[in-house]
């Protein structure tokens, strides 16, 4: 009996040494340790042995069983380890590279910087209760000039060189045209902004474009004052530039506001010390604003004795240029993706 047990162990060892596959190991386990396995038979037959032999054989058979179990496990571990190491070897890739591109896969998208700033400003103003308005880009003389207190003979028309269309209309020279349309559709009190594209009949160079973007803003309520205007402008600029901005208001003439202002900010490049960007003045002219002229309110069918308001116009191209240090306004409409992809 004892020899038989040793023989089983030897057979198991031989079988294990001859295999390299995980499935075969299972077969070996069944052959020796399974329900009908060779060693299992012996263990089952222990009861038939004389009692003096029983404990000795039993002990031996259990020892051998453990040894076979260990041998199986260790063989299994070896095989698995070598399978994984082969796989890992086969699956080596060059991790120094970026993802290889195939058609249909493209790098990230980019929103045009004007869209980005426009959305930022829209969000700032909507959070303060302003409604976003729209208007046509091809406008009538009435909305672009006349209702803004700029009659046909007014010299201010020279300040805004205008594209005229063959049908007697014009390309709006400022988003202020949206103001008038806003007053037609909204009864006071209201707060509105009108972002959009505007046009000037002007030769282009690094600082002049014939097409650019503005945001017009207007608030009409009881007793709106210069102090309120300054408050909103300060909040707006703080939000845009993410820092407290020093501003100053100077008189500025625009027929649709009275009083009218030019709002300057401390040059962000030199912090007001004077540099080439601000022409050594320390200040950069940023946005025209003022209290809405009573005539303009009247054109919008609003009684200036009951209501007053402020309005402002903000040039978006200028803002983006200041923020990122862009030195040529022509980049915006160049269609060159090397420009857009920087933002």
């Amino acid at each position, binding site marked *: 009996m004892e020899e038989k047990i040793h023989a089983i162990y030897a057979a198991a060892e031989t079988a294990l040494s001859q295999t390299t596959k995980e499935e075969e190991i299972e077969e070996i386990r069944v052959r020796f340790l399974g329900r009908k396995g060779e060693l299992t038979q012996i263990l089952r037959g222990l009861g038939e042995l004389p009692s003096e032999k029983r404990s000795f054989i039993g002990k031996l058979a259990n020892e051998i069983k453990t040894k076979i179990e260990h041998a199986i496990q260790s063989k299994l571990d070896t095989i698995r380890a070598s399978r994984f190491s082969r796989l890992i070897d086969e699956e080596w890739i060059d991790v120094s590279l970026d993802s290889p591109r*195939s*058609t249909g896969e*493209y790098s*990230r*998208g*980019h*929103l*045009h910087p004007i*869209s980005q700033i426009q959305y930022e400003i*829209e969000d700032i103003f*909507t959070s303060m*209760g302003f*409604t*976003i*308005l*729209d208007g046509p*880009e*091809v*406008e*009538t003389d009435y909305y672009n000039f006349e209702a803004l207190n700029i009659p046909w003979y007014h*010299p201010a028309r020279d*300040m805004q060189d205008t*594209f*005229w*269309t*063959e*049908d*007697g*209309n014009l390309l709006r020279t400022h988003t202020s045209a949206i103001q008038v349309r806003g007053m037609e559709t909204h009864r006071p*009190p209201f707060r509105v902004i009108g972002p959009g*594209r505007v046009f000037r*009949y002007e030769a282009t160079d690094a600082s002049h474009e*014939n*097409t650019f973007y503005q945001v017009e803003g207007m608030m009409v309520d009881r*007793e*709106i*004052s*210069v*102090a*309120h205007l*300054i*408050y909103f402008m*300060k909040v707006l600029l703080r939000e845009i530039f993410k820092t407290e901005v020093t501003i*100053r*208001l*100077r*008189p*500025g*003439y625009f027929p649709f506001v*009275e*009083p*009218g202002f*030019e709002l300057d900010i401390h040059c962000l490049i030199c912090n007001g010390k004077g540099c080439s960007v601000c022409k050594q003045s320390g200040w950069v002219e940023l946005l025209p604003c003022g*209290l809405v002229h009573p005539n303009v309110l009247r054109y919008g069918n609003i009684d200036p004795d009951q209501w007053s308001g402020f309005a402002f116009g903000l040039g978006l191209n200028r803002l983006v240029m200041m923020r990122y240090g862009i030195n040529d306004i022509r980049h915006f*409409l*160049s*269609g*060159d*993706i090397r420009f*857009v992809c920087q933002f």
Partner: protein
Amino acid sequence: MWLSWNTLSDLVDLTNLSVEEVVERLTMSTAEIESIEPMNPHLAQVIAAKIIDIMPHPHADKLTLVDVDTGKEKVRIVCGAPNHKKGDIVALAPCGTTLKEGFTVHKTKIRGEESCGMLCSEKELGLSDDHSGIIILPPHTQLGKPLNEIFKEWYDVRIEIDNKSITHRPDLWCHEGFAREIAALFGRKLIDPVDYSIEKSFGKSDALAVVIENGDAAPRYCGLYVKNINIAPSPSWLKARITAIGMRPINNIVDITNYVMSEIGEPMHAFDRKKLRGNTIIVRMARDGEPITTLDGNTHVLSKDDIVIADAGGPIALAGVMGGGESEIDDSTQEIVLEAANFNPIHIRRTAGRYNLRTEAAIRFEKSLDPELCPRAIIRCYQLIKEIIPQAEAITSIVDAYPKKLKKISITTSFSFIRRKLGTNISNSEICNILKSLQFTITESGDTLSIEVPSFRATKDISIPDDIVEEVGRIHGYDNIEPKAPLVPCAPPEKNEKRAFERLIKDIMVKDNHLIEVSNYSFVGEAQLKKLGLSSDKELKLKNPLSMEQDRLRRSLLPNLFNNAALNQRFRDEFQIFELGRVYLKDDKQSPNLAQEKTFVAGIVYARKPSTPLYYRARQIISLLLSKLNIKNFHIIPETTSLPPYAHPGRSAIVRAMDKEIGLIGELHPATIEALDMKGHGAFFDLDVDALMAAEKLPQKFTELPRFPEVPFEVSVLAPSREYAANLCDIVRASTQLVRSCEIISIYEGAPIPLGKKSVSLKVVFGSNEKTLEPSQIDELQKTVIAALEKNGYALR
């Protein structure tokens, strides 16, 4: 416009004020200042010195060695001038002086002889163009005295005003206007340069008459007949003043009229009396076709909209713009007629524009000048003539035609209104002081404030209480107003759905589709459209385009996007771009007069060597967009015939939503690729955003997950190779209600499939909401599907 500090100091007390502080206050309260420029700063360094000896230069015939005494030391100068002699007092520029035109004097050797400075001519000092010899100063000039103390008038600072910032202020187009502002800002005394007593010396002759035919066009005309004129160069002080404001000195009379314009703001003119025909000056509208030759030598054919000054023989000046050549004063002029008039700004502006003559006179008249200036200007002008030509004599008094009197403007407002508008607690007394300092006449009565506007502010600038608010605010200083949040109800604003929708589209394009947003001009040009095979002339054209390339408004975003692709192929082998913007359709009017504007989103996908047709990428972009927008029932339908010329007829499809055509997807026609000089391939898409917004959206609702197992089934059939395989799925889906989905998993052409055919493999999924399908039922379903396909001519493989 230039202002001379010296001229300003004649009009307002500037004692102890620096140019910088004046400019700072003017910037904050009045106008934009472009620059500050010292005039002839070198005069402070150049000194008077006496020639004590002159010796010939040993190596040069035309040079001399000059020893001069500066009062402190003796220096030797090598000098090339021909006009100096021993004992002369001359102007010495010591080493280190930078003269006019940036030339710096250095210690140097000239032909071997040392020279420690330079003796200067008038030209080198910036006093005139005279370079014939060095300047010889009066004999008793104190040695060592700096020249800025001798030529005080030439040592000046000039301030450049930004003209655009004073278009609304006719009163600011002269020194006096700014002097008034400075007086108000600094509480200084204003000095009136006009000596009205001189009027008493005017003669009583009737040798001049003025007739104004149209008082609306010319509200006022003042003339003065002056004889015993002697035309000569102006005295040095006047030349200095004229030079400082950026003009060239001409002669005494012209310089005086220009000076009066720059001093008190009234453009003036002087006619040679002997060249006038008759005694009467007629101010009238020009006759259509009437010619005039102006001072600049150009001849203009006038229209009845122009105002002319005429005599018995015809026009002698284009009123308010430029004098006529025939009546121009010259060196022999002995008698003149001085003119100071007032014209309708609208006429002047149009005339100046029509003949491209934006003269100093025109830019002032078009701002609405104060007619009260006319007689003042005549008196001031005569005062200066008498000073410079003492024998001159006014033989008439001021001949003043004034048919259209300036209306006095009175404004009634209140202190509380001003405070409310400014949002600051400025006191009654400060308000009064400010208004008085600006020469408003005020009457207080409790809170009420009655204001009379001075004539120089009354022509268009100030007419309503809000204008008074501005006057108070700007002098008070806007920086002194504390920002204040308004007290208003707090509620979420009304939402602009269109804007939000546009933004959503852009976000999907960028974040989900990974496209790059570009922005293009709204303009296109004929050549560009022709290249794409588009018939031109449907676009709304500009009357005044900047160029042929941008002479009309786009009807589609695509032409400019195609150009973007042609540009960017130079930088990248693969890219995908889009634009969301407006197109302008003149054939569809929206509100009464305006061309319809529609918003589109369009784009182009480019690849130099695409591995699969780019059409599929464009289609993928649009499918994703439409599904993210929840567009209900959208279809992408193949189209081969009714396509724009730039679309590839074998690779294009129309996008429909709820049976409305809303866009197009396609690859570029090979001819377009060639015309655009593109090296690779391109696919485009073009969608109507307004239609997308109007399209019905799928409600967002939960659908029960399938409770019973779904059974897949794959089948391959033969189809003609040019058959749209998507049709097969339609057939399968229509064959039985238990088809959950059907998709094409592969298409194969080539052996053993017969030529002209392709094998299409479909994956069909069956499923029921009520029960698990029995094997027999599945078998039945498969047969139904196959039968449906076969019935339509697609044989099983």
